[in-house]
């Protein structure tokens, strides 16, 4: 029995463990070590971090602001979409929305970024449409290929993902809890804010955190939609490696990105523990 209960499970999980160890833990450990190894001297220290802050301090701030803002917008939009699907409006519109909102899920970041380049440009499709529709004057058209474009692309792409999670969670609520609130006199917006969102807040948080981590790791969008300065840390990492072969600073930036993601995860877990429920 000991073999079956102790050894066998270990043997069965071994391939998975090895894959995780080799493909994830080893590169991670190597990356962490490299972050603390000074590129020039080969000694351990904080030189790479000092250089990271000196060179990319603004980019760090930029990255935090963009990811933070994008994450908040993604949260808000996914709640709005989920709420619309659950609380309904015109059945046709709901069906159209249900069909449409998932599209960005199937479009890779790099393709999305490429599309945004022609969509958001000064003389791009969006401005052309707005001019044709008479919303803006041709002269007041401006390019959105900067931080706004990055934000727009991230929100556009990642909202689909978060909305899929959130609307799924909303759909699995007991519909009677929604009806009970409306029955007592709550309008749709109040039902969304006071009844639905509190019940799916964990899923909303998961959607937002996963989006944040994804955004932190995407290179193509800031590279293709952004204009270089300030830019996001992924671009700086790629630049350190490609232009200088400097893995030290790149890994230091990676380490800082990791810290950022870990901080968010920590807040999330701590909240889960303090409310005593499942996080």
């Amino acid at each position, binding site marked *: 029995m000991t073999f079956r209960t102790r050894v066998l499970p270990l043997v069965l999980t071994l391939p998975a463990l090895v894959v995780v160890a080799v*493909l994830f833990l080893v*590169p*991670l450990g*190597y*990356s962490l070590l490299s972050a603390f190894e000074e590129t020039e001297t080969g000694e351990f220290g904080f030189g790479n971090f000092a250089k990271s802050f*000196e*060179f*990319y*301090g*603004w980019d760090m701030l930029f990255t935090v602001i963009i990811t933070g803002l994008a994450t908040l917008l993604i949260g808000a939009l996914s709640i709005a979409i989920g709420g619309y699907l659950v609380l309904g409006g015109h059945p046709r519109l709901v069906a159209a929305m249900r069909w449409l909102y998932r599209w960005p899920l199937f479009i890779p970041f790099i393709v999305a970024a490429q599309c945004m*380049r*022609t969509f958001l*440009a*000064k*003389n*791009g499709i969006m401005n052309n449409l707005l001019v044709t529709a008479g919303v803006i004057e041709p002269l007041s058209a401006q*390019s959105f*290929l*900067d931080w706004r474009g990055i934000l727009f692309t991230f929100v556009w792409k990642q909202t689909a993902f978060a909305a899929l999670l959130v609307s799924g969670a909303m759909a699995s609520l007991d519909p009677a809890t929604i009806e009970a609130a409306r029955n007592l006199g709550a309008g749709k917006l109040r039902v969304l804010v006071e009844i639905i969102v509190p019940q799916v807040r964990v899923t909303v948080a998961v959607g937002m955190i996963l989006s944040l981590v994804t955004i932190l*790791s995407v*290179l193509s969008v800031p*590279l*293709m*939609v*952004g*204009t*270089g*300065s*300030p*830019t996001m840390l*992924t*671009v*700086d*990492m*790629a*630049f350190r*490696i*490609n*232009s*200088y*072969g400097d*893995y030290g600073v*790149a*890994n230091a*930036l*990676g380490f800082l*990105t990791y810290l950022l993601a870990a901080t968010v995860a920590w807040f999330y877990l701590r909240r889960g523990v303090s409310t005593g429920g499942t996080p």
Partner: protein
Amino acid sequence: MRLTRLMSLVGAALAANVLTAPAGAATLNVVTAGDQNMADYVRDYLGPKFQKDNPGVTINVFGTGPGDAGSQKIFEKLEAQQKASTATYDIDVAVVHQKMGGQMVEAGMLEPYRGKIATGKLVSRDTAVNALGVNVDGYVMPMFHSQTALAYNSDLVKSPPKSYNELKSWVQAHPKQFGYNGIKNGMSGVSFVVGWIYAYGGNADKLMKGPYDKAVEASWDKAFADLKEFNKNVTFTPGNAGTMDMLNRGEIAIGPVWVDMFYTWMADGKLPPSVKLLLPEPGMPGQPMFYVIPNKAASKDLAMKFVELATSPAVQAEGIVKRFNWYPGIDAEHLKGSLDQAVWNKLFDDVSPQDLAKKGQPFPIVPYFSAITEGYEKKVSN
């Protein structure tokens, strides 16, 4: 970052598997850095041509991606095999950027083969000898020369600025009409910045030829400060292609571009004919791509034959100049016989060979090059 690293490791592992599979003598593994069109050039044009002369040879072609990143991958792959003391390397011919050519020579990875092939004598330009400060004489054959220049929309700009100085005042008068892509989104922007330092940093010759002296870097502060000021009236574009996109849509009127890319886009109708090229005073950098052969290449002789074909006047004329609008790697005079006048004229339409000779500069030696980009990051964009 660790993802990038991981992906390159996985990619290298995959490539290694595929490469080592057909281990027969008649296999040639060609790895190219650069955009997809580089790999396509070897696969679709050069490869079949070579196979016609050498029946039975299998040619495997791999592209490692654009920019220095692509060359970096090839270097790391060879470095790994070098460290592991492998008997033979699984790369026979590599196409790498100028900077990496020098780095590979210094690392002792390459075979000095230029003297052993017939076309070796057709190259006299300095860039085949000196790669950003490293003596690469004998180790490399230039595949082609690429050059950056300013593209401008002649409908919008009647009298284009002919120098960095004129550009400075033009930008002042036409804010946001000049656009470039910084230094992180592609080399055309880097080129523009290097040209700026050549123009205003002083000692341009020393930057190109060395030797390296850290003290020189301090003399760039004013140039960087001016560039920061200059940038305030500049539109930043998303990448090399981004600059051309914006030129095409009329969102900017002037911007630095790669000449070959410019002609290709022009030929595809992606740029209006009103967009023209000029090389500003005192000049802008360009660079060759090198054919190199690792000193432990498995099929060294075949590799040399391959490079010989690739650098023959006929191939240089037909493939490099006519098809891709690149400047030839071997000296242009050897091509005259193989190229009709119209094609020749087209290539040198806006930028004359004299201009090119005078204002087409090499990139600086590696330590200065890194110092310029780092200086930009630190003092201009930060």
